[in-house]
């Protein structure tokens, strides 16, 4: 059996190539947060406390648009609801661990670390295999915190008229690039985009994000079911 440190290191090595896009994402977050008017301390606090890139950018976007706290918190929850799925998958591998380890692993349960450790868990059955997830999570944590910090420094030097807030939709667009090749995903994207744009002024409390997302999920539910029936 490998030592805890060896498994931890394997996690670091496996996740490293996937850290390259995290750097500009963190920079953009830091720059935008300062641009919108959050203090450097609050910006750092978001990365430390929330530690979830997409949801932190959504927080900024909704906050700058004047959304209520309730909508911001529920949108952050909605964006992060994908972690429920990660947790469900990981739970069978960590069910024997003490509560404190489950809490630590939960904090580090992020997209990239989950994806790579899930592969590792399939191939390795050692008792200490969860150190792989912690290794990947800690690596991403360090990259995310330092790129946020760098963004804060840059943010105070960058003029507003550069229109950097346009980087927000671009960042989310970048996360969807693989979806444009699949039919159901394209339909879901257009549905959600349509509902949110048209509902922006008519759905109260800036709830257009949740309403559009739920509409998109219903479409996905129907289309995936229909497609199965044809098979």
């Amino acid at each position, binding site marked *: 059996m490998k030592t805890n440190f060896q498994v931890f290191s394997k996690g670091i090595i496996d996740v490293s190539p996937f850290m390259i896009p995290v750097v500009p994402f963190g920079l953009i977050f830091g720059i935008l947060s300062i641009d919108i008017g959050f203090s450097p301390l609050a910006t750092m606090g978001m990365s430390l406390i929330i530690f979830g890139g997409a949801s932190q950018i959504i927080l900024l976007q909704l906050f700058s648009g004047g959304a209520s706290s309730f909508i911001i918190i529920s949108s952050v929850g909605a964006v992060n609801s994908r972690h429920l799925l990660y947790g469900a998958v990981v739970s069978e591998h960590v069910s024997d661990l003490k*509560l404190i380890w489950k809490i630590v692993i939960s904090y580090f349960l992020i997209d990239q670390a989950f994806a790579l450790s899930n592969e590792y868990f399939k191939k390795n059955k050692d008792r200490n295999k969860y150190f792989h997830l912690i290794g990947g999570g800690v690596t991403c944590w360090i990259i995310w915190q330092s790129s946020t910090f760098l963004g804060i420094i840059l943010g105070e030097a960058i003029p507003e008229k550069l229109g950097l807030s346009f980087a927000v*939709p671009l960042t989310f667009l970048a996360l969807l690039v693989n979806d444009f090749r699949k039919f159901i995903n394209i339909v879901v994207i257009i549905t959600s985009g349509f509902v949110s744009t048209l509902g922006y002024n008519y759905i109260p409390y800036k709830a257009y994000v949740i309403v559009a997302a739920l509409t998109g999920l219903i479409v996905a539910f129907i289309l995936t079911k229909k497609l199965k029936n044809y098979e």
Partner: protein
Amino acid sequence: MSDWSLILYCGFVTFLTRFSMIALLKKEMFNDRVREVLSYVPTAIFPAIIFPAIFLDNTGSIQIEDNPKILAAFIATCIGVFTRNIIATIFSGLASYWFLIFVV
């Protein structure tokens, strides 16, 4: 609500989404069907952020004509689909946007 309580609540909600399944899960709750539909969560949520930020102006009205963000987003999408590269997508979009507002 102060900035800090907003951040703390968002952090708490985020932690709960990560922790709750690890702490509580009974495996029979998640069948393949639930898993399949949940895999569309990012696809359903992200456009709700993307589209209004591109198609609406500062006052919230739909702006189709004289809107450089639409063309820039279209270029970024094409680059993204072609390269599947996150950085290339973001920077091609920003570069075309700057080109359209500062040069054209």
